[in-house]
């Protein structure tokens, strides 16, 4: 038997939509197999892992609604970053340092409560959010500049900068920015009042969730209905055609990095203004890296990223649930996330190719 790829005449629209669905199904099957090997009842484990976080949909039990709020809060940063990365990857601009831009945003925005702990007004909130986005943009401007000016691989430079900014944050919270009243814990003063994100009603859903939805819709409009979006698509799929059309490759690199960096920075300041509540050495469970999976699962479409973010948020919450209920390490979440990305990429082959298994005889006949 031999596996042979046959190029389709055009991209299969059906497979573009089906591929992530197949990938999720395959991940669930793999999950069941993994759980069986760990000596667990696979169906129960899958239920706890993947369905518990969304069980309000069929229980209608108000107690379960809390997990939906959790889901929205977890999905928000993933969707924000994923939407920006989608645009970047469409343009063939490989920003993989979103985790660093997230951290830079948190540091820049967090500087306000550190230096002006008494400042409480709606303007504080606005200033912190703006600083957060600006911090992410500034950090992402470095790989963009190095790419355009020196042709240095943006993949490697953006990733290296993740380590650098995480060390800067570590130094700040252990050194100059440490809360004097914090019993020597490596953390800044806790953020209070207007230094935190407002929540809707008495829920835990905060303003960041709204940002994620708005960003997804705005970027979908940008990509679908504006010249800039067209330019980015052309430069990504047919760089030569883009050059002849007079589109600037350098401009696209700047645009994609500043956009995805700014959104990552916003996600970062959102996290420290709500979930975390202050600056500390670790402020994100790898949202910037998981958002790469979000972008691909969402078909590099900003609205798709919104849906994909919910799926990945389930994998985070499921990991926590599995640790509590099943006694499985929550590290399994990252394994499932990695497996999911593999399946998506494998299934995406079906968009451009038909996969055929030929017997040896057929191969020889054709040859």
């Amino acid at each position, binding site marked *: 038997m031999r*596996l*042979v*790829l046959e*190029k389709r005449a055009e991209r299969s629209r059906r497979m573009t939509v089906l591929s992530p669905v197949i990938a999720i199904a395959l991940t669930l099957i793999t999950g069941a197999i993994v759980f069986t090997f760990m000596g667990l009842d696979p169906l129960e484990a899958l239920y706890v892992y993947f369905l518990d976080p969304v069980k309000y949909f069929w229980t209608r039990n108000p107690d379960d609604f809390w997990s939906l709020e959790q889901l929205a809060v977890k999905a928000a940063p993933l969707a924000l970053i994923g939407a920006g990365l989608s645009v970047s*990857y469409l343009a063939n601009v*490989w920003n*993989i340092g979103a985790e660093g831009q997230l951290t830079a945003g948190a540091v820049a925005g967090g500087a306000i409560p550190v230096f002006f702990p008494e400042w409480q007004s709606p303007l504080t909130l606005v200033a912190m959010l703006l600083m957060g986005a600006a911090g992410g943009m500034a950090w992402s401007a470095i790989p963009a500049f*190095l790419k355009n*000016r*020196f*042709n*240095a*691989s943006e*993949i*490697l*430079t953006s*990733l*290296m*900068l993740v*380590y*650098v900014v995480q*060390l*800067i944050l*570590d*130094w700040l919270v*252990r*050194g100059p920015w440490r809360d004097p009243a914090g019993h020597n814990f490596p953390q800044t003063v806790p953020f209070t009042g207007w230094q935190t994100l407002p929540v809707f009603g008495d829920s835990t859903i905060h303003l960041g969730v709204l940002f994620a939805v708005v960003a997804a819709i705005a970027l979908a409009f940008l990509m679908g209905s504006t010249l800039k979006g067209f330019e980015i698509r052309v430069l990504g799929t047919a760089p030569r055609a883009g050059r002849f059309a007079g589109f600037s490759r350098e401009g696209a690199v700047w645009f994609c990095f500043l956009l995805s960096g700014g959104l990552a920075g916003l996600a970062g300041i959102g996290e420290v203004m709500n979930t975390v509540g202050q600056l500390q050495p670790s402020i994100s469970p790898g949202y910037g*890296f998981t958002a*790469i*999976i979000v972008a*691909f699962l969402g078909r590099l479409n900003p609205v798709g990223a919104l849906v994909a973010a919910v799926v990945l948020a389930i994998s985070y919450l499921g990991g926590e649930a599995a640790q509590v209920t099943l006694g499985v*390490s929550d*590290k*399994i*979440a*990252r*394994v499932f*996330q*990695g*497996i999911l*990305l*593999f399946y998506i*990429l*494998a299934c*995406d*082959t079906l968009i*451009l*190719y038909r*996969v055929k298994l030929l017997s040896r005889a057929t*191969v020889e006949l*054709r*040859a």
Partner: protein
Amino acid sequence: MNELLSVILTIITASTPLLLAAIGELVVERSGVLNLGVEGMMAIGAVCGFGAALATGSPLIGVVAAIAAGAALSMLFGFMTLILVSNQVATGLALTLLGLGLAGLVGEGYVGQPGVKLGKIDLPVLTDIPFIGPIVFGEDILVYAALALMLAVAYVLFRTKMGLIIRAVGDSHQSAHALGYGVVPVRYACVVFGGGCAGLAGGYLSLAYTPQWIENMTAGRGWISLALVVFGSWLPWRVAIGAYLFGTVMILGFSLQAIGAGIPSQLLSSLPYIVTIVALVVISGNRALTRANTPACLGQPFVPDR
């Protein structure tokens, strides 16, 4: 003198994993494939090497397990990018995410356990020569293996027919295919070789460099190795020089920390990453240098027509 000796010895052990991983990736890239999963393969190599050595008590079995684990993960990458023609950049990232995740999960039970250390060579008389002896004759066996590997790769790539085929496949897969060479099998072999090297590099970390398992102990070394291949402009000897330079930077950071020069430790820890960026900028800015050796088909998909 003794301090200098110990600094030199640690520089050599810090450089060896970088050299191993970078030489492997060099072969992969020379065949036209970009595997960004080095960090993930290193992590898996580190945890499997550690576990196997712990279970059997033999560091050599640990080394073999590390190579096998890295190679196994790279086979997955090869299947995806060469058979299913998936995007190489994305698949490499996926390999890193999966490798780091798996290593964290598998290694959970190993945290805090004392490991099995790969011993250093002790030749009578030779190792006892003051200063020179321990440096030249008293390293662990993988230090020599890494240098031998570098020489072997340089020889095979530039002095043998096999190397010519690998470079042909990497520079023009259409021509190589037209001449009757199997582009996909050659690339697959190179990918698995690179995976084995990355696994070995990881195993070196958990068996020789710091004989223990700590999550995220690879600390970006896989990515630095990728940068080293660019820095060395795809030439083995330049990659080796680069690896030793980077090892020096890493250890100088630690040494300055020990002296307590009043510099924040985080700044010193970030040195290798900053130096990597600077090195990339310097080399990539020199287009004549990079253009001469960059494999022309690097990262491009190839589907054989039937």
